[in-house]
C-alpha cells in the first residue's frame, strides 16, 4: 500500500517528525490542556485524592448516573472522549446560522433539529476518522541532496520487496507510443499502443488478462466502470471490449475519437473527436446522452473535473473551455496561454487546474474563481500533465518525467522527482491508492515509484483495491442504483441544494423548451379544405376572418353584457334610493 514505501525509507532518508498517534484521553483543546495536566499531576502525586474540579466533572459526567460506585473508585475519564478541533473542522458542512425568533416555534424546531443532526453527523465522522490510520509516504534527501536526483533504482533498492517490485519497465518497442489507464481502484492497467497493441493486466501481480492487436491506430484507451470492460478509440470508431479482449460493441456514432474521459458516478464516457465534437455515452444504457459541437477544431486535450464532472478541453488558440452535457455552449471559456494548450489536468477536489501550453508555460488556476495562481516557465515545455490523488503533479518534457509537489500554494523552483524514460512520453497517469506513476512512452511502459502520490486510506465501499468478484458485483449494483443523472452536471454541484429563484416566465420557458410546445398556447384556426373552388385563397382568408371576428364578437358580447349588468344594478340602486328619499304623496298622481 501507499505507506509501505515510507516505512522502509525511514533508514535512508530522514523523514519529517512523525507524530505519535493521539490517544483519546490526551486532551487537545487549549482549554482542556490545563485540565489534562492537572489531572496527570494529581494522578501521580495523590492518586486517592481527586481534584475538586474533576470531582465536579464526574458528578456531571454521563456515566456516573447512579452515584454509588461498586468498586469505590471513580471513572478517570468521565464522559465521551473529546474530539480534536481540526478533525471537527475537516467534517464541517457549511456554516451554522442564527436561530429564527421564538414565535416561529415550528420553524425553530425544524432548524434546531437539523442543526442537531448535522452536528451529530459531524461529530461521529470526526470520531470515526480514527479508523483511517494510514499516512502518506514521502521522500526526503540527505543534506544538500535534491530529491529529484534520487534515481528510481535507488528507491526500489531501499524499499521493501513488494514496493520495490512496483518499479518496472515493459519493453514494447514494436507498437509505438503507449497510452494507458488505471482502473478506478488502481488494480488494473490498460495499455494501448499507437499501432494497435491493446493489453490489460493486473499490474501488481503482473497477470495478463488479455492482449491483442486491433490492427488499427489506437488513439486512446479507457476503463469503464469496472475492470470487466474498456473502451478503445480506434482510427475510425469507438470500440468496447471486455477484459478477455472480446469486442462487445462498435459504436458508429462516435467517430474519430481522440481522447476519452470516464465519469464514474454518472456512468458517462465523454469523448472528444478530431471533428470537434464532444460526445457523451451513457454506458449503463448504451445511449448517447449529448453531442456538442464545440466549433473549436481538433480536440486532443481533454481532462475531467472529478469534483463536478465537468469536461475541460484545451484548444489551439490558447483557451480552455469547460463543458457539461446540458449546454451547447461552453460554460466557461478561459484564455490560459498565448500559444496552444498542450495539456490540462484538474485536481481531485476540483479547486485547481494545471495547464501547459505551447508557450512553454505551466500555469495553475483556481477554477472556482477562474484566477491564475502560479505561472511557471519550463524551458522545454510540458505535456501529459497528471495530478495524483494527493496533489502531486507529473509533467513530461520529451522523455523526462518530472513530478512536482504542491505547485499551487507556494512557487516551486525544482521538481520533487524526475525520471528519464527510454522514449518520448505519450501518456502518464498516477495509480489510485498507490505511490506509483505509470508512464507510457515510445518504447513501452514504465511504472515508477513516487512516494506520497496515492491516497493511503481507501473507501472500501467506493473503490476497494482488494475486492473480490462478489464484492465487485455488489458494488456494481449499488453504483448503478446510485447513478447520477447527466442533467445534474453543473459547475456548482451544490446548486441542487439551493432554492431555484427563477421567475414564473423562466420556468414556463423551460417547460416549453422541454416539451417542445407551449401547453398554454391557444391553438390556431386552420380552415378545412373544401372542394369545388370553395377553398380558394380568398375564401380561406374570409373564413379565417369570420372565425376571428366571431371570437372578437364573443369577447365584445361578454363585455357589453357585463356593462349592461353593472348599469342595471346601478339603476336599481338609484331607484331604491329615490323611493326612500321622496315618498310619494297622494297628490303625486296629478303631477305631470
Amino acid at each position, binding site marked *: 500500500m501507499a505507506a509501505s514505501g515510507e516505512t522502509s525509507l525511514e533508514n535512508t532518508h530522514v523523514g519529517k517528525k512523525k507524530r505519535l498517534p493521539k490517544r483519546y484521553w490526551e486532551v487537545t483543546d487549549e482549554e482542556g490542556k490545563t485540565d489534562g495536566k492537572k489531572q496527570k499531576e494529581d494522578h501521580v502525586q495523590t492518586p486517592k485524592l481527586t481534584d475538586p474540579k474533576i470531582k465536579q466533572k464526574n458528578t456531571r459526567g454521563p456515566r456516573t448516573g447512579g452515584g454509588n460506585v461498586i468498586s469505590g473508585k471513580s471513572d478517570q475519564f468521565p464522559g465521551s472522549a473529546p474530539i480534536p478541533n481540526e478533525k471537527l473542522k475537516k467534517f464541517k458542512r*457549511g456554516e451554522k446560522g442564527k436561530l429564527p425568533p421564538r414565535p416561529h416555534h415550528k420553524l425553530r*424546531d425544524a432548524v434546531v433539529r437539523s442543526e442537531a443532526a448535522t452536528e451529530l453527523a459531524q461529530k461521529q465522522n470526526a470520531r470515526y476518522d480514527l479508523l483511517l490510520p494510514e499516512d502518506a509516504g514521502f521522500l526526503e534527501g540527505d543534506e544538500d541532496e535534491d530529491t529529484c536526483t534520487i534515481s528510481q533504482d535507488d528507491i526500489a533498492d531501499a524499499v521493501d520487496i513488494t514496493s520495490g517490485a512496483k518499479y518496472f519497465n515493459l519493453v514494447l518497442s514494436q507498437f509505438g507510443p503507449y497510452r494507458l489507464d488505471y482502473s478506478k481502484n488502481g488494480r488494473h492497467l490498460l495499455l494501448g499502443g499507437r499501432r494497435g497493441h491493446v493489453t490489460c493486466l493486473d499490474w501488481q501481480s503482473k497477470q495478463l488478462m488479455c492482449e491483442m492487436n486491433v490492427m488499427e491506430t489506437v488513439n486512446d484507451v479507457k476503463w469503464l466502470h469496472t475492470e470487466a470492460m474498456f473502451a478503445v478509440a480506434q482510427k475510425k470508431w469507438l470500440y468496447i471490449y471486455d477484459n478477455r479482449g472480446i469486442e462487445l460493441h462498435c459504436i458508429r456514432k462516435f467517430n474519430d475519437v481522440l481522447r476519452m474521459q470516464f465519469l464514474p458516478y454518472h456512468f458517462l464516457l465523454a469523448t472528444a473527436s478530431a471533428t470537434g465534437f464532444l460526445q457523451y455515452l451513457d454506458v449503463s444504457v448504451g445511449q448517447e446522452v449529448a453531442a456538442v459541437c464545440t466549433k473549436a477544431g481538433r480536440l486532443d486535450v481533454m481532462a475531467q473535473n472529478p469534483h463536478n464532472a465537468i469536461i475541460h478541453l484545451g484548444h489551439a488558440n490558447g483557451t480552455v473551455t469547460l463543458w457539461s452535457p446540458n449546454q451547447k455552449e461552453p460554460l466557461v471559456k478561459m484564455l490560459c496561454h498565448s500559444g496552444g494548450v498542450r495539456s490540462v489536468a484538474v485536481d481531485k477536489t476540483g479547486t485547481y487546474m494545471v495547464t501547459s501550453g505551447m508557450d512553454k508555460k505551466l500555469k495553475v488556476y483556481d477554477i472556482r474563481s477562474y484566477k491564475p495562481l502560479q505561472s511557471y516557465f519550463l524551458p522545454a515545455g510540458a505535456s501529459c500533465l497528471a495530478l495524483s490523488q494527493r496533489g502531486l503533479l507529473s509533467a513530461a518534457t520529451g522523455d523526462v518525467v518530472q513530478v512536482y509537489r504542491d505547485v499551487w500554494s507556494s512557487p516551486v523552483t525544482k521538481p520533487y522527482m524526475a525520471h528519464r524514460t527510454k522514449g*518520448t512520453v505519450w501518456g502518464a497517469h498516477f495509480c489510485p491508492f498507490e505511490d506509483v506513476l505509470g508512464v507510457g512512452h515510445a518504447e513501452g511502459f514504465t511504472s515508477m515509484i513516487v512516494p506520497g502520490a496515492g491516497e493511503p486510506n481507501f473507501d472500501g465501499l467506493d473503490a476497494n483495491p482488494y475486492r473480490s468478484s462478489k464484492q465487485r458485483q455488489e458494488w456494481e449494483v449499488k453504483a448503478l442504483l446510485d447513478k447520477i443523472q447527466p442533467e445534474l452536471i453543473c459547475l456548482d454541484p451544490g446548486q441542487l441544494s439551493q432554492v431555484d429563484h427563477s421567475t414564473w416566465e423562466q420556468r414556463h420557458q423551460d417547460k416549453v423548451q422541454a416539451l417542445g410546445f407551449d401547453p398554454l398556447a391557444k391553438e390556431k384556426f386552420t380552415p378545412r379544405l373544401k372542394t369545388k373552388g370553395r377553398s380558394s385563397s380568398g375564401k380561406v382568408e374570409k373564413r379565417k376572418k369570420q372565425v376571428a371576428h366571431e371570437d372578437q364578437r364573443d369577447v365584445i358580447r*361578454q363585455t357589453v353584457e357585463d356593462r349592461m349588468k353593472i348599469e342595471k344594478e346601478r339603476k336599481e340602486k338609484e331607484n331604491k334610493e329615490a323611493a326612500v328619499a321622496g315618498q310619494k304623496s297622494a297628490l303625486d298622481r296629478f303631477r305631470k
Partner: protein
Amino acid sequence: MAKSKTTRKKGKVTKMTSATVVVQGTEDDEEELHQALTEDVISASEDEGGSDDERKHCRLLEAISSLGGKTRKKLTERSEASIQVSEFTVNAEGEGDKINLSDLIGTLDKAPTALTATKKQLKNLEHNHTALDTPLTRKETEQIQRVVAFEKTSKEVSRWQSVVVQNQKAEQLVFPLNQEPSGPKRMEHVVSGWKAQTPLEQEIFNLLHVNQQPLHNPVLTQNEEATMKAMSLEEAKIRRAELQKVRALQSYYEAKARREKKIKSKTYHRVQKKVMRKEYLKRFDEMVKTDPAAALEELKKMELSRMKERMSLKHQNSGKWARSKAIMAKYDDGARKAMQQQLEVNKDLTMKLVIPTNEEDEDEVAEALPDFVNDAEPILDPINPWMRGKLSTEPAAQEESNCLVPPAAGPGDVKAGDGPDLLREEEEQVEETEEEAILRGFEERRKLRRAKDAVEVAPVVMEESEEMPTGKKAEMVTIESSDDDDEVVEISEFTSLYRGLVKDHVEPPVEPPRAGADPCVSQGEGPALLEEGLVRVRTLEDMELLGQDVSACEPAPQTTQTLSTEQTEPQSATKQADGKRKRKKMIDPNEVLTKEAKVIKVPFAPTAVEDVEDTDEQRFIIKEAFAGDDVISDFLKDKKKQESAGMPKVVDLTLPGWGEWGGGGLQPSRSKRKRFRIKVAPPPPRKDQKLLNVILSEKRNSSVAAHQVSQVMFPFTNPAQFERTIRAPVGHTWNTGNAVQKITAPKIVTQLGAIIEPISREELVKGENQAVTGKSNLRSDQGPQQKRRSQQKKKHKHKKN
C-alpha cells in the same frame, strides 16, 4: 333597600298609604344616598302644598343626585289625577314598590295582641325565603347549561393540550405507547444480575475488584424488575405450546369439515340431518329440564326458523324436483310417496300455531304501550318488514337486512347466504355513487376550465389584435436598425481596438498626470488587474511578444503623435456620443495574461534526439508566440461579441411619413426618432465583468432547475433557512451508519402486529409529570436520565445568562 324600608316602617307607618315614593336602586354602594334621598322626598311629600322653595330645593337635590349617578330612574311625583298614567313621564306611586305583608294589616288597630302575634308570624314568614324563584325561561336555562358544559369540556380537553403539543413536536413517536425498551442493555444492568460462580470467574472478579474498576449499581426500578419477572421463559414456552396445540386441533377440525362438506351423497346428508335433529331435540329436552330460560331462547330460534321456512317457497311443490316428481307420480310409487311426504312437511310448516294466551298478552301490551312507541323503530316484529314505519325503495334488500338485524336472527346459513348479497348491493351502490362523483368532478373541472379559458382568451385576443401590426412593424424596423447597429458596433470595435493600440501615443501629451503613472498599464481598468500585480517583471519572451507595444510605451516621437491625432479626429467627430463609453470599456490586450512566470530548473535536459525534434517544435512555438497577440485580441473580440449579444436591443418604433414629409432619401426628424426609440433597461452586470481572460456563459441551466426546489415549504420563511437545513448530506457515503440511522429515523414507529390503543388517561397523568412519548433521537449515546440532566443543565445556563 332594606334599611330604607325599615326606617319607613318605624316612623311613618300611618301615612304610608297616602304618600309613598318609589325608590328603585340597584347598586349597594348607592344605598346610603338613596336613604337620604328618600327621606328628603318623604319629608317633602309630608307637608304637601308647602312652599315652592322646598320643592325647588328637592328638585335641585334630585338633579344633583342624578348628575352623580349612572343611570337612575327619575323620581317623579304625581301631579294630576287620571286613570291612565303615561309610562314615560308620570308614575303611579308605589307601583314598583314591594308591599310588605305587615303593611296590609297596618290598619287593624283594634286587636293589638293579635296584631303583634300575626306580625311576628308574618315576619318569620318573611325571613325564611322558602318561596321559589320564578323558573328561568327555557332558552336561558339552555344557554346557561351550554356555557357550563362548554367550560367543563374545554377544561377537560385542555388538559390534553400539552400532550398533543408534545406529540406534535416529538421527533419520533413509538406506538404502542408504554413499551419496554428493547435492544442491548447497558453494561451495568448485565453485570449486576450476574454472579461469579466458577472459580475462574471468581478469580477474575476479584482481580477486577482489586483493580477497582469503576462499576455502578444497577439502575433497575421496581417496575422494571416486576416486568422482567413477568416475562419468564417457562411461562412463555408453556403458552406457546398451548397455542400450538389449539392451532393444530383447529386445523384438524377444519380439514374434517371440508372433507364432509365435499360428500355429494344426498342420503348421507339426509341421514346426517336427521341425526342432528334428533340430537338437537334431545338436547333441547334436557335443556328444558335444566335451564328453562335458555330453552326458551332456543324455542324462539326454532320458531324463527319455522317462520322463515313458511315464508320461503320451500316445500311448496313448486320446485323443479317437485314438478318432475308430480309428473312421475302417476307411474312411480316412490315418487308419489316422496310428494306426499313433502306435502306433509309443507302442511306442517304452514300450519298456523295458535297460542291464545300469548296473543292476549300481546294485545294487552299493545294497549298499555303509549302511542309514540310506534313512531320510532322499536323492532317488535323483527322479521316482518311491513311492520316497520319506513318503506324502502328496495324491499328485498331491506328484508334481508332486517333478517340480519335481530341478534337471534335464524341459523348461520341464512346469514352466510344473505350477507354477501347485501354487501354486493351496497358495493354496487357505492360504486355507482363513486362513478357519479367522478363524473361530476370531471364535469365541474371542465366547466372551470372553460370558464378559465374564456377569461384568459379574452384579453389575449385583444392584445393580439392591437399589437400585431405594431409588432411586425417594430420587427421590420429593428431588423433594419440592427443591421445598422452591427455596422456601427463593428466600426466602433475596430476603432476601439485601434485606439487601444494607439492610445499610448495619444494620451501622454494630452493628459500628463495620467501618463505619469504607468503608460503600459492603464489604471482605469478593473481592479482584477490590480490584484494580479502591477509590477510586471518582463521576461525575454514577453519582450519579444510585445515588442511593438514596448516601443510605444517610450516617449512617442512627434510624427506618430500627429499622425494618430489626425486619425482620431474624424472618428471622434463622428462618434463622440458612444465613443466615450467604448473607451471606458476597452480592454488593453497587453493586460491579459500578465502573470509572471517562474523559471524552473530541470535536472536533466531532454536528450539530443529530442532536441532535433524540438527545434522544429520551437520554430512552431515561436510562430505561435508571435501570433500570441492575435490570440488575445481574438479572445477579447469574442468576449465583446458575447457581451453585446447579451445586451438588450434598442427598439425603434419610428414610422417615416407620419406627421411630416416622407419618401426616398428623407429621414424622419431627430426629435421623432428620439421620441420613438424605446430604451430597454440594461441587464444585470455579467459575472465575468472583472475577469479579463474569462468568458462565463450567462445561460440559465434549466436541466438542474427541474430538480431544484422552487418554493420554500411551510415552516421556512426564507430560502436561506431552508438551504441551511439541507446543507449536510444524509447518505451512507458521507456519514457513519449510526448517524445515518439516527438522521433518517422515521417519524412514527409502529410495532408489527401490535394493537395501538388510543392514548389513555394514565398517560395524561404521566405526561403532566414528565415528557412521555416524545423521544429525542439525536442526543445520541446518552441514556434518558442523562438527557434530562443535560436539559436541566441547559436551563441552568439560560438562567445564568
